[in-house]
Protein backbone atom coordinates (compact mmCIF):
# COMPACT_ATOMS: atom_id res chain seq x y z
CA UNK A 1 0.00 0.00 0.00
CA UNK A 2 2.86 2.34 0.87
CA UNK A 3 4.44 1.75 -2.51
CA UNK A 4 1.19 2.41 -4.32
CA UNK A 5 0.86 5.73 -2.50
CA UNK A 6 4.33 6.83 -3.61
CA UNK A 7 3.61 5.78 -7.17
CA UNK A 8 0.38 7.75 -7.15
CA UNK A 9 2.18 10.86 -5.89
CA UNK A 10 4.87 10.58 -8.58
CA UNK A 11 2.23 10.18 -11.21
CA UNK A 12 0.22 13.14 -9.94
CA UNK A 13 3.27 15.38 -10.15
CA UNK A 14 4.17 13.92 -13.51
CA UNK A 15 0.81 14.84 -14.90
CA UNK A 16 1.46 18.52 -14.28
CA UNK A 17 4.74 18.58 -16.10
CA UNK A 18 4.86 18.81 -19.81
CA UNK A 19 3.78 21.64 -21.97
CA UNK A 20 1.04 20.26 -24.08
CA UNK A 21 -2.33 18.96 -23.03
CA UNK A 22 -2.18 16.05 -25.40
CA UNK A 23 0.72 14.48 -23.53
CA UNK A 24 -1.12 14.01 -20.33
CA UNK A 25 -4.38 13.53 -22.13
CA UNK A 26 -2.90 10.53 -23.89
CA UNK A 27 -1.80 9.28 -20.49
CA UNK A 28 1.89 8.90 -21.34
CA UNK A 29 3.08 8.27 -17.79
CA UNK A 30 5.73 5.75 -16.68
CA UNK A 31 3.31 3.95 -14.34
CA UNK A 32 0.04 2.48 -15.52
CA UNK A 33 -1.80 1.95 -12.21
CA UNK A 34 -4.83 4.19 -11.78
CA UNK A 35 -7.31 4.29 -8.93
CA UNK A 36 -10.97 4.41 -9.90
CA UNK A 37 -11.31 8.03 -8.84
CA UNK A 38 -8.34 9.17 -10.87
CA UNK A 39 -9.52 7.21 -13.85
CA UNK A 40 -12.80 9.11 -13.84
CA UNK A 41 -11.03 12.42 -13.42
CA UNK A 42 -8.74 11.59 -16.32
CA UNK A 43 -11.73 10.86 -18.54
CA UNK A 44 -13.43 14.14 -17.79
CA UNK A 45 -10.24 16.09 -18.53
CA UNK A 46 -9.92 14.37 -21.86
CA UNK A 47 -13.43 14.80 -23.17
CA UNK A 48 -14.37 18.11 -21.62
CA UNK A 49 -17.96 17.27 -22.51
CA UNK A 50 -19.03 16.80 -18.88
CA UNK A 51 -17.60 20.16 -17.95
CA UNK A 52 -19.31 22.10 -20.66
CA UNK A 53 -18.00 25.33 -22.19
CA UNK A 54 -17.53 27.29 -18.95
CA UNK A 55 -16.00 24.33 -17.13
CA UNK A 56 -13.39 24.02 -19.81
CA UNK A 57 -12.61 27.68 -19.50
CA UNK A 58 -12.22 27.39 -15.76
CA UNK A 59 -9.69 24.61 -16.24
CA UNK A 60 -7.44 27.04 -18.03
CA UNK A 61 -7.63 29.86 -15.49
CA UNK A 62 -5.31 30.49 -12.63
CA UNK A 63 -7.52 30.92 -9.58
CA UNK A 64 -6.52 33.85 -7.39
CA UNK A 65 -7.43 33.73 -3.73
CA UNK A 66 -8.91 37.18 -3.25
CA UNK A 67 -12.58 37.00 -4.13
CA UNK A 68 -12.68 40.66 -4.99
CA UNK A 69 -10.12 40.25 -7.72
CA UNK A 70 -11.12 36.82 -8.93
CA UNK A 71 -13.63 37.97 -11.47
CA UNK A 72 -11.59 40.87 -12.78
CA UNK A 73 -8.57 38.62 -13.38
CA UNK A 74 -10.58 36.16 -15.43
CA UNK A 75 -9.60 36.07 -19.06
CA UNK A 76 -11.51 38.52 -21.17
CA UNK A 77 -14.13 36.41 -22.91
CA UNK A 78 -16.86 37.32 -25.29
CA UNK A 79 -19.92 35.38 -24.23
CA UNK A 80 -21.52 36.33 -27.44
CA UNK A 81 -24.04 35.98 -30.16
CA UNK A 82 -22.64 35.97 -33.68
CA UNK A 83 -24.55 35.24 -36.87
CA UNK A 84 -23.70 34.98 -40.56
CA UNK A 85 -26.40 34.66 -43.21
CA UNK A 86 -26.24 34.45 -47.01
CA UNK A 87 -28.81 36.09 -49.23
CA UNK A 88 -29.07 36.34 -53.01
CA UNK A 89 -26.21 38.65 -53.84
CA UNK A 90 -24.06 38.55 -50.70
CA UNK A 91 -23.86 37.97 -46.97
CA UNK A 92 -24.96 39.71 -43.78
CA UNK A 93 -22.88 39.30 -40.61
CA UNK A 94 -24.30 40.29 -37.23
CA UNK A 95 -23.08 40.36 -33.63
CA UNK A 96 -23.92 41.78 -30.21
CA UNK A 97 -21.38 44.00 -28.40
CA UNK A 98 -20.78 42.66 -24.91
CA UNK A 99 -17.33 41.59 -23.66
CA UNK A 100 -17.25 40.20 -20.15
CA UNK A 101 -14.53 39.39 -17.59
CA UNK A 102 -16.23 36.96 -15.24
CA UNK A 103 -19.41 38.70 -14.15
CA UNK A 104 -18.34 42.24 -15.08
CA UNK A 105 -19.00 43.76 -18.49
CA UNK A 106 -15.60 45.01 -19.54
CA UNK A 107 -16.76 46.61 -22.78
CA UNK A 108 -20.41 47.18 -23.58
CA UNK A 109 -19.82 48.51 -27.09
CA UNK A 110 -17.18 46.24 -28.59
CA UNK A 111 -16.91 45.49 -32.27
CA UNK A 112 -16.80 41.76 -32.82
CA UNK A 113 -16.91 41.89 -36.62
CA UNK A 114 -13.36 42.53 -37.78
CA UNK A 115 -12.08 43.08 -41.26
CA UNK A 116 -9.69 40.60 -42.86
CA UNK A 117 -9.65 42.05 -46.37
CA UNK A 118 -11.82 44.51 -48.28
CA UNK A 119 -14.37 41.84 -49.03
CA UNK A 120 -14.01 39.34 -46.17
CA UNK A 121 -14.99 39.92 -42.56
CA UNK A 122 -14.93 37.61 -39.55
CA UNK A 123 -17.20 37.45 -36.48
CA UNK A 124 -15.25 36.56 -33.33
CA UNK A 125 -16.43 34.69 -30.24
CA UNK A 126 -14.78 32.89 -27.33
CA UNK A 127 -11.65 34.29 -25.75
CA UNK A 128 -11.16 37.92 -26.78
CA UNK A 129 -7.36 37.71 -26.79
CA UNK A 130 -7.23 34.49 -28.83
CA UNK A 131 -9.71 35.66 -31.44
CA UNK A 132 -8.03 39.06 -31.83
CA UNK A 133 -4.63 37.48 -32.35
CA UNK A 134 -5.92 34.83 -34.77
CA UNK A 135 -7.64 37.47 -36.89
CA UNK A 136 -4.46 39.62 -36.80
CA UNK A 137 -2.36 36.73 -38.09
CA UNK A 138 -4.87 35.86 -40.80
CA UNK A 139 -5.12 39.49 -41.91
CA UNK A 140 -1.34 39.53 -42.30
CA UNK A 141 -1.25 36.25 -44.25
CA UNK A 142 -4.14 37.31 -46.47
CA UNK A 143 -2.42 40.58 -47.24
CA UNK A 144 0.66 38.70 -48.41
CA UNK A 145 -1.49 36.25 -50.33
CA UNK A 146 -3.36 39.08 -52.10
CA UNK A 147 -0.08 40.68 -53.16
CA UNK A 148 1.28 37.39 -54.45
CA UNK A 149 -1.95 36.42 -56.19
CA UNK A 150 -2.49 39.81 -57.79
CA UNK A 151 -6.22 39.87 -57.12
CA UNK A 152 -8.54 40.00 -54.09
CA UNK A 153 -8.43 36.87 -51.93
CA UNK A 154 -11.43 34.55 -51.97
CA UNK A 155 -13.56 33.86 -48.92
CA UNK A 156 -12.57 30.19 -49.07
CA UNK A 157 -8.87 31.04 -48.70
CA UNK A 158 -9.56 33.30 -45.72
CA UNK A 159 -11.65 30.61 -44.06
CA UNK A 160 -9.00 27.99 -44.67
CA UNK A 161 -6.26 30.14 -43.14
CA UNK A 162 -8.38 30.60 -40.03
CA UNK A 163 -9.10 26.93 -39.93
CA UNK A 164 -5.38 26.01 -40.19
CA UNK A 165 -4.47 28.24 -37.27
CA UNK A 166 -7.44 27.08 -35.17
CA UNK A 167 -6.86 23.41 -35.83
CA UNK A 168 -3.09 23.33 -35.45
CA UNK A 169 -3.24 25.22 -32.16
CA UNK A 170 -6.37 23.65 -30.81
CA UNK A 171 -4.80 22.92 -27.43
CA UNK A 172 -3.98 26.56 -26.80
CA UNK A 173 -6.80 28.45 -28.44
CA UNK A 174 -10.41 28.90 -27.45
CA UNK A 175 -12.17 30.74 -30.22
CA UNK A 176 -15.18 30.16 -32.46
CA UNK A 177 -15.29 32.21 -35.66
CA UNK A 178 -17.66 32.83 -38.55
CA UNK A 179 -16.04 34.00 -41.78
CA UNK A 180 -18.23 35.73 -44.34
CA UNK A 181 -17.58 37.63 -47.54
CA UNK A 182 -18.14 38.06 -51.20
CA UNK A 183 -15.86 37.19 -54.08
CA UNK A 184 -16.42 37.14 -57.82
CA UNK A 185 -16.06 33.36 -58.24
CA UNK A 186 -18.49 32.02 -55.65
CA UNK A 187 -20.49 35.09 -54.64
CA UNK A 188 -21.52 35.41 -51.01
CA UNK A 189 -20.28 32.61 -48.74
CA UNK A 190 -20.40 31.87 -45.01
CA UNK A 191 -17.96 29.48 -43.31
CA UNK A 192 -18.26 28.43 -39.68
CA UNK A 193 -15.09 27.51 -37.76
CA UNK A 194 -16.10 26.38 -34.25
CA UNK A 195 -13.89 25.40 -31.31
CA UNK A 196 -11.87 22.41 -32.54
CA UNK A 197 -10.98 23.86 -35.93
CA UNK A 198 -13.51 22.25 -38.28
CA UNK A 199 -14.30 24.17 -41.43
CA UNK A 200 -17.89 23.99 -42.57
CA UNK A 201 -19.51 25.91 -45.37
CA UNK A 202 -23.08 26.78 -44.50
CA UNK A 203 -25.89 28.94 -45.90
CA UNK A 204 -26.19 30.47 -42.43
CA UNK A 205 -24.09 30.06 -39.28
CA UNK A 206 -24.60 30.97 -35.64
CA UNK A 207 -22.07 30.95 -32.82
CA UNK A 208 -21.33 32.06 -29.29
CA UNK A 209 -23.12 31.40 -26.04
CA UNK A 210 -26.29 33.13 -27.25
CA UNK A 211 -26.58 30.90 -30.29
CA UNK A 212 -28.06 28.09 -28.16
CA UNK A 213 -31.29 30.08 -28.12
CA UNK A 214 -31.39 30.56 -31.87
CA UNK A 215 -31.16 27.08 -33.37
CA UNK A 216 -34.90 26.54 -33.40
CA UNK A 217 -35.57 30.10 -34.54
CA UNK A 218 -33.34 29.75 -37.59
CA UNK A 219 -34.71 26.35 -38.50
CA UNK A 220 -38.07 28.03 -38.87
CA UNK A 221 -37.21 31.51 -40.08
CA UNK A 222 -34.40 31.06 -42.57
CA UNK A 223 -35.21 30.54 -46.22
CA UNK A 224 -33.28 30.48 -49.49
CA UNK A 225 -33.01 33.54 -51.69
CA UNK A 226 -33.90 36.34 -49.28
CA UNK A 227 -33.37 39.96 -50.25
CA UNK A 228 -30.78 42.14 -48.55
CA UNK A 229 -33.31 43.88 -46.29
CA UNK A 230 -35.02 40.63 -45.30
CA UNK A 231 -31.69 39.08 -44.40
CA UNK A 232 -30.58 42.08 -42.36
CA UNK A 233 -33.90 42.23 -40.52
CA UNK A 234 -33.61 38.53 -39.77
CA UNK A 235 -30.12 38.97 -38.33
CA UNK A 236 -31.11 41.94 -36.17
CA UNK A 237 -34.19 40.11 -34.89
CA UNK A 238 -32.16 37.01 -34.09
CA UNK A 239 -29.43 38.88 -32.21
CA UNK A 240 -31.98 40.82 -30.22
CA UNK A 241 -33.78 37.58 -29.27
CA UNK A 242 -30.51 36.09 -28.09
CA UNK A 243 -29.66 39.25 -26.13
CA UNK A 244 -33.04 38.97 -24.39
CA UNK A 245 -32.34 35.46 -23.14
CA UNK A 246 -28.55 35.17 -22.82
CA UNK A 247 -26.87 36.94 -19.91
CA UNK A 248 -23.54 37.00 -21.64
CA UNK A 249 -24.83 38.90 -24.70
CA UNK A 250 -26.00 42.48 -24.71
CA UNK A 251 -25.34 46.04 -25.73
CA UNK A 252 -25.93 47.04 -29.33
CA UNK A 253 -26.39 45.05 -32.53
CA UNK A 254 -23.79 45.58 -35.24
CA UNK A 255 -24.26 44.27 -38.78
CA UNK A 256 -22.04 44.21 -41.82
CA UNK A 257 -23.50 43.66 -45.29
CA UNK A 258 -21.03 42.48 -47.96
CA UNK A 259 -21.93 42.20 -51.61
CA UNK A 260 -20.56 42.96 -55.06
CA UNK A 261 -20.99 46.70 -54.50
CA UNK A 262 -18.95 46.78 -51.30
CA UNK A 263 -19.36 46.77 -47.55
CA UNK A 264 -21.95 48.55 -45.40
CA UNK A 265 -21.74 48.74 -41.62
CA UNK A 266 -24.88 49.31 -39.58
CA UNK A 267 -25.49 49.97 -35.93
CA UNK A 268 -28.68 49.36 -33.96
CA UNK A 269 -28.58 50.78 -30.42
CA UNK A 270 -30.21 48.68 -27.69
CA UNK A 271 -33.19 50.95 -27.19
CA UNK A 272 -34.27 50.70 -30.85
CA UNK A 273 -34.66 46.93 -30.68
CA UNK A 274 -38.05 45.30 -30.45
CA UNK A 275 -39.32 44.33 -26.99
CA UNK A 276 -39.93 40.65 -26.39
CA UNK A 277 -41.97 38.67 -23.84
CA UNK A 278 -42.08 40.42 -20.42
CA UNK A 279 -39.64 43.14 -21.43
CA UNK A 280 -40.74 46.57 -20.25
CA UNK A 281 -40.48 50.03 -21.77
CA UNK A 282 -37.72 52.06 -20.14
CA UNK A 283 -39.05 54.53 -17.55
CA UNK A 284 -37.04 57.55 -16.35
CA UNK A 285 -34.21 56.21 -18.46
CA UNK A 286 -30.78 57.80 -18.16
CA UNK A 287 -30.60 57.58 -21.94
CA UNK A 288 -33.21 60.33 -22.13
CA UNK A 289 -31.73 62.46 -19.35
CA UNK A 290 -28.19 62.24 -20.66
CA UNK A 291 -29.04 62.69 -24.32
CA UNK A 292 -28.80 66.44 -24.06
CA UNK A 293 -27.07 68.09 -27.05
CA UNK A 294 -23.32 68.27 -26.49
CA UNK A 295 -20.48 69.92 -28.48
CA UNK A 296 -18.81 68.16 -31.40
CA UNK A 297 -16.16 65.58 -30.53
CA UNK A 298 -12.59 66.31 -31.56
CA UNK A 299 -11.72 65.97 -35.23
CA UNK A 300 -8.12 66.13 -36.42
Amino acid at each position, binding site marked *: MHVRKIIREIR*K*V*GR*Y*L*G*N*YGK*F*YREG*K*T*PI*VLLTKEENLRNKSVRSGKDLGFWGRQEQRQ*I*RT*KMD*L*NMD*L*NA*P*HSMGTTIIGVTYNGGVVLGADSR*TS*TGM*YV*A*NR*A*SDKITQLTDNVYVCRSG*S*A*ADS*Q*LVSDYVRYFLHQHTIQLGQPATVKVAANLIRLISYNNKN*MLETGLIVGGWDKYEGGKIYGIPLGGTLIEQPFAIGGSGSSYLYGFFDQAWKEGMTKDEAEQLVVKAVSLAIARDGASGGVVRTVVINSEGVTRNFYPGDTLQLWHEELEPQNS*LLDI*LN*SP*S*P*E*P*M*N*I
Partner: protein
Amino acid sequence: MSNSVIEVPPKGGFSFDLCKRNEMLAKKGVNPPSFRKTGTTIVGLVFQDGVILGADTRATEGPIVCDKNCEKIHYMAPNIYCCGAGTAADTEAVTDMVSSQLQLHRYHTGRESRVVTALTLLKRHLFNYQGHVSAALVLGGVDVTGPHLHTIYPHGSTDTLPFATMGSGSLAAMAVFESKYKEGLTRNEGIELVTEAICSGIFNDLGSGSNVDVCVITKGGKEYLRNHLQPNPRTYTNSKGYSFPKKTEVLLTKIIPLKEKVEIIEGGDAMEE
Protein backbone atom coordinates in the same frame (compact mmCIF):
# COMPACT_ATOMS: atom_id res chain seq x y z
CA MET B 1 8.63 -0.74 -17.00
CA SER B 2 7.87 1.30 -20.08
CA ASN B 3 10.45 3.81 -21.17
CA SER B 4 8.00 6.43 -22.30
CA VAL B 5 8.44 9.56 -20.23
CA ILE B 6 6.69 12.87 -20.64
CA GLU B 7 9.04 14.78 -22.90
CA VAL B 8 8.78 18.47 -23.56
CA PRO B 9 8.76 18.80 -27.35
CA PRO B 10 11.89 20.56 -28.60
CA LYS B 11 10.30 23.80 -29.76
CA GLY B 12 11.03 27.38 -28.91
CA GLY B 13 8.74 29.70 -27.01
CA PHE B 14 7.93 30.22 -23.37
CA SER B 15 7.83 27.07 -21.24
CA PHE B 16 4.80 26.97 -18.97
CA ASP B 17 5.92 23.90 -17.00
CA LEU B 18 6.64 25.78 -13.80
CA CYS B 19 3.30 27.57 -14.03
CA LYS B 20 1.52 24.21 -13.94
CA ARG B 21 3.68 23.14 -11.02
CA ASN B 22 2.81 26.34 -9.17
CA GLU B 23 -0.89 25.72 -9.74
CA MET B 24 -0.57 22.23 -8.33
CA LEU B 25 1.35 23.47 -5.30
CA ALA B 26 -1.23 26.19 -4.66
CA LYS B 27 -3.98 23.56 -4.67
CA LYS B 28 -2.04 21.68 -2.01
CA GLY B 29 -1.81 24.83 0.09
CA VAL B 30 1.76 25.87 -0.66
CA ASN B 31 1.41 29.47 -1.78
CA PRO B 32 4.11 31.59 -3.35
CA PRO B 33 5.12 34.69 -1.34
CA SER B 34 2.68 37.52 -1.95
CA PHE B 35 4.11 40.00 -4.38
CA ARG B 36 3.66 43.68 -4.69
CA LYS B 37 0.48 44.48 -6.56
CA THR B 38 -1.05 47.74 -7.48
CA GLY B 39 -4.63 46.96 -6.44
CA THR B 40 -5.64 50.05 -8.20
CA THR B 41 -7.96 52.46 -9.81
CA ILE B 42 -6.76 53.65 -13.20
CA VAL B 43 -8.89 55.57 -15.66
CA GLY B 44 -8.64 57.30 -18.99
CA LEU B 45 -10.94 59.44 -21.03
CA VAL B 46 -10.95 61.22 -24.38
CA PHE B 47 -11.88 64.89 -24.22
CA GLN B 48 -12.09 67.71 -26.72
CA ASP B 49 -8.39 68.25 -27.34
CA GLY B 50 -6.88 64.88 -26.41
CA VAL B 51 -6.67 62.31 -23.67
CA ILE B 52 -6.64 62.49 -19.86
CA LEU B 53 -5.26 59.62 -17.77
CA GLY B 54 -5.72 59.28 -14.02
CA ALA B 55 -4.48 56.91 -11.33
CA ASP B 56 -4.40 56.50 -7.56
CA THR B 57 -1.05 56.02 -5.77
CA ARG B 58 -1.34 53.03 -3.45
CA ALA B 59 0.79 49.90 -3.88
CA THR B 60 -0.10 46.86 -1.76
CA GLU B 61 1.72 43.69 -0.73
CA GLY B 62 -1.04 41.35 0.36
CA PRO B 63 -2.94 43.29 3.04
CA ILE B 64 -0.17 45.83 3.69
CA VAL B 65 0.28 49.14 1.92
CA CYS B 66 3.92 49.04 0.89
CA ASP B 67 4.05 52.34 -1.01
CA LYS B 68 1.76 55.24 -0.17
CA ASN B 69 2.78 57.37 -3.09
CA CYS B 70 3.84 55.28 -6.06
CA GLU B 71 3.67 56.34 -9.71
CA LYS B 72 1.30 54.36 -11.83
CA ILE B 73 1.30 56.54 -14.93
CA HIS B 74 4.29 55.38 -16.94
CA TYR B 75 6.04 57.17 -19.77
CA MET B 76 5.96 55.41 -23.14
CA ALA B 77 6.72 58.21 -25.60
CA PRO B 78 6.57 62.01 -25.44
CA ASN B 79 2.99 61.80 -26.66
CA ILE B 80 1.93 58.47 -25.14
CA TYR B 81 1.45 57.53 -21.50
CA CYS B 82 0.27 54.26 -19.96
CA CYS B 83 -1.39 53.55 -16.60
CA GLY B 84 -0.72 50.10 -15.17
CA ALA B 85 -2.68 47.86 -12.79
CA GLY B 86 -1.82 44.37 -11.57
CA THR B 87 1.59 43.20 -10.41
CA ALA B 88 3.80 46.29 -10.05
CA ALA B 89 6.90 44.53 -11.39
CA ASP B 90 5.04 43.30 -14.46
CA THR B 91 3.54 46.67 -15.36
CA GLU B 92 6.81 48.52 -14.90
CA ALA B 93 8.87 45.97 -16.80
CA VAL B 94 6.44 45.75 -19.70
CA THR B 95 6.02 49.52 -20.05
CA ASP B 96 9.79 50.11 -19.81
CA MET B 97 10.45 47.46 -22.42
CA VAL B 98 7.87 48.79 -24.87
CA SER B 99 9.01 52.36 -24.25
CA SER B 100 12.56 51.41 -25.32
CA GLN B 101 11.22 49.57 -28.35
CA LEU B 102 9.25 52.69 -29.29
CA GLN B 103 12.37 54.84 -28.94
CA LEU B 104 14.28 52.54 -31.29
CA HIS B 105 11.37 52.60 -33.69
CA ARG B 106 11.42 56.41 -33.62
CA TYR B 107 15.09 56.38 -34.53
CA HIS B 108 14.38 53.99 -37.40
CA THR B 109 11.42 55.85 -38.85
CA GLY B 110 12.26 59.41 -37.86
CA ARG B 111 8.62 60.05 -36.91
CA GLU B 112 6.52 60.54 -33.82
CA SER B 113 5.31 57.25 -32.31
CA ARG B 114 1.72 56.21 -32.84
CA VAL B 115 -0.50 54.84 -30.11
CA VAL B 116 -1.44 51.76 -32.15
CA THR B 117 2.27 50.86 -32.37
CA ALA B 118 2.54 50.82 -28.59
CA LEU B 119 -0.74 48.92 -28.45
CA THR B 120 0.41 46.17 -30.81
CA LEU B 121 3.78 45.78 -29.09
CA LEU B 122 2.14 45.46 -25.67
CA LYS B 123 -0.61 43.11 -26.84
CA ARG B 124 1.79 40.74 -28.62
CA HIS B 125 4.04 40.54 -25.60
CA LEU B 126 1.18 39.89 -23.18
CA PHE B 127 -0.44 37.29 -25.43
CA ASN B 128 2.83 35.41 -25.77
CA TYR B 129 2.90 34.99 -22.00
CA GLN B 130 -0.72 33.80 -21.92
CA GLY B 131 -1.81 36.00 -19.03
CA HIS B 132 1.05 35.08 -16.68
CA VAL B 133 2.44 38.61 -17.02
CA SER B 134 -0.26 40.16 -14.89
CA ALA B 135 -0.42 43.65 -16.35
CA ALA B 136 -3.72 45.39 -17.07
CA LEU B 137 -3.04 48.68 -18.82
CA VAL B 138 -4.82 51.82 -19.93
CA LEU B 139 -2.87 53.28 -22.84
CA GLY B 140 -3.59 56.78 -24.05
CA GLY B 141 -1.97 59.30 -26.33
CA VAL B 142 -2.30 61.77 -29.16
CA ASP B 143 -0.57 61.26 -32.49
CA VAL B 144 -0.99 62.45 -36.07
CA THR B 145 -4.14 60.37 -36.48
CA GLY B 146 -5.82 61.87 -33.42
CA PRO B 147 -6.41 61.04 -29.75
CA HIS B 148 -6.58 57.34 -28.84
CA LEU B 149 -7.46 55.46 -25.67
CA HIS B 150 -7.08 51.69 -25.32
CA THR B 151 -7.35 49.11 -22.57
CA ILE B 152 -5.12 46.05 -22.60
CA TYR B 153 -5.92 42.96 -20.53
CA PRO B 154 -3.33 40.52 -19.15
CA HIS B 155 -4.29 37.87 -21.71
CA GLY B 156 -3.60 40.19 -24.60
CA SER B 157 -7.04 41.37 -25.66
CA THR B 158 -7.58 45.07 -26.29
CA ASP B 159 -10.52 47.44 -26.46
CA THR B 160 -10.72 50.92 -27.92
CA LEU B 161 -13.02 53.15 -25.93
CA PRO B 162 -13.85 56.82 -25.28
CA PHE B 163 -13.55 56.23 -21.52
CA ALA B 164 -12.04 53.29 -19.68
CA THR B 165 -11.26 52.09 -16.18
CA MET B 166 -9.11 49.19 -14.93
CA GLY B 167 -7.97 47.71 -11.63
CA SER B 168 -9.79 46.65 -8.49
CA GLY B 169 -11.48 50.04 -8.21
CA SER B 170 -12.63 49.98 -11.82
CA LEU B 171 -16.25 49.30 -10.96
CA ALA B 172 -16.46 52.33 -8.69
CA ALA B 173 -14.76 54.56 -11.25
CA MET B 174 -16.83 53.20 -14.13
CA ALA B 175 -20.01 54.05 -12.25
CA VAL B 176 -18.90 57.70 -12.11
CA PHE B 177 -17.94 57.72 -15.79
CA GLU B 178 -21.15 56.08 -16.97
CA SER B 179 -23.28 58.69 -15.25
CA LYS B 180 -21.24 61.80 -16.02
CA TYR B 181 -19.27 61.28 -19.22
CA LYS B 182 -20.28 63.06 -22.40
CA GLU B 183 -18.48 63.75 -25.65
CA GLY B 184 -16.59 66.99 -26.12
CA LEU B 185 -15.57 67.73 -22.53
CA THR B 186 -13.28 70.70 -21.93
CA ARG B 187 -9.93 70.30 -20.20
CA ASN B 188 -11.12 71.38 -16.76
CA GLU B 189 -14.31 69.34 -16.94
CA GLY B 190 -12.27 66.33 -17.98
CA ILE B 191 -9.77 66.70 -15.15
CA GLU B 192 -12.62 67.13 -12.67
CA LEU B 193 -14.37 64.01 -13.93
CA VAL B 194 -11.19 61.95 -13.83
CA THR B 195 -10.42 63.15 -10.29
CA GLU B 196 -13.93 62.29 -9.21
CA ALA B 197 -13.68 58.80 -10.66
CA ILE B 198 -10.34 58.13 -8.98
CA CYS B 199 -11.63 59.49 -5.68
CA SER B 200 -14.60 57.14 -5.85
CA GLY B 201 -12.10 54.31 -6.31
CA ILE B 202 -9.90 55.57 -3.47
CA PHE B 203 -12.74 55.84 -0.97
CA ASN B 204 -14.73 52.76 -1.93
CA ASP B 205 -12.05 50.22 -2.82
CA LEU B 206 -9.64 48.80 -0.30
CA GLY B 207 -6.94 48.23 -2.87
CA SER B 208 -6.77 51.91 -3.89
CA GLY B 209 -5.92 54.94 -1.81
CA SER B 210 -3.72 57.95 -1.11
CA ASN B 211 -3.46 60.59 -3.80
CA VAL B 212 -4.66 61.23 -7.34
CA ASP B 213 -2.25 61.53 -10.29
CA VAL B 214 -3.47 63.06 -13.53
CA CYS B 215 -1.82 63.27 -16.94
CA VAL B 216 -3.25 65.44 -19.72
CA ILE B 217 -2.00 64.73 -23.26
CA THR B 218 -2.88 67.03 -26.14
CA LYS B 219 -1.51 67.71 -29.58
CA GLY B 220 0.62 70.53 -28.17
CA GLY B 221 2.22 68.46 -25.44
CA LYS B 222 1.65 66.74 -22.17
CA GLU B 223 1.10 67.84 -18.60
CA TYR B 224 1.86 65.37 -15.84
CA LEU B 225 0.09 66.57 -12.69
CA ARG B 226 1.72 64.42 -10.03
CA ASN B 227 -0.37 64.35 -6.83
CA HIS B 228 -2.95 66.65 -8.37
CA LEU B 229 -5.22 65.98 -5.42
CA GLN B 230 -4.23 64.79 -1.97
CA PRO B 231 -7.44 63.86 -0.18
CA ASN B 232 -5.67 61.70 2.43
CA PRO B 233 -3.30 63.92 4.41
CA ARG B 234 -1.50 62.50 7.41
CA THR B 235 -3.71 63.02 10.45
CA TYR B 236 -1.07 63.60 13.13
CA THR B 237 2.35 65.08 12.43
CA ASN B 238 5.07 66.05 14.83
CA SER B 239 5.20 69.86 14.79
CA LYS B 240 8.90 69.85 15.71
CA GLY B 241 9.77 67.73 12.70
CA TYR B 242 12.30 64.90 12.85
CA SER B 243 15.97 65.16 13.86
CA PHE B 244 18.00 61.99 13.85
CA PRO B 245 21.11 62.14 16.08
CA LYS B 246 24.34 61.60 14.19
CA LYS B 247 25.83 58.38 15.49
CA THR B 248 29.12 58.09 13.63
CA GLU B 249 31.87 60.58 14.53
CA VAL B 250 33.84 62.08 11.63
CA LEU B 251 37.60 61.92 12.40
CA LEU B 252 39.23 63.11 9.15
CA THR B 253 38.12 64.59 5.80
CA LYS B 254 40.57 64.30 2.88
CA ILE B 255 39.79 64.99 -0.79
CA ILE B 256 42.17 63.69 -3.52
CA PRO B 257 41.36 64.90 -7.07
CA LEU B 258 41.88 62.19 -9.70
CA LYS B 259 44.72 62.91 -12.12
CA GLU B 260 43.58 63.08 -15.72
CA LYS B 261 45.27 60.42 -17.84
CA VAL B 262 43.87 61.42 -21.21
CA GLU B 263 43.81 64.90 -22.70
CA ILE B 264 40.31 65.76 -23.87
CA ILE B 265 40.12 67.96 -26.99
CA GLU B 266 36.78 69.62 -27.52
CA GLY B 267 35.50 69.44 -31.10
CA GLY B 268 38.37 67.49 -32.68
CA ASP B 269 38.57 66.22 -36.29
CA ALA B 270 35.89 63.88 -37.47
CA MET B 271 36.83 60.19 -37.69
CA GLU B 272 38.25 59.13 -41.04
CA GLU B 273 36.67 56.26 -42.89
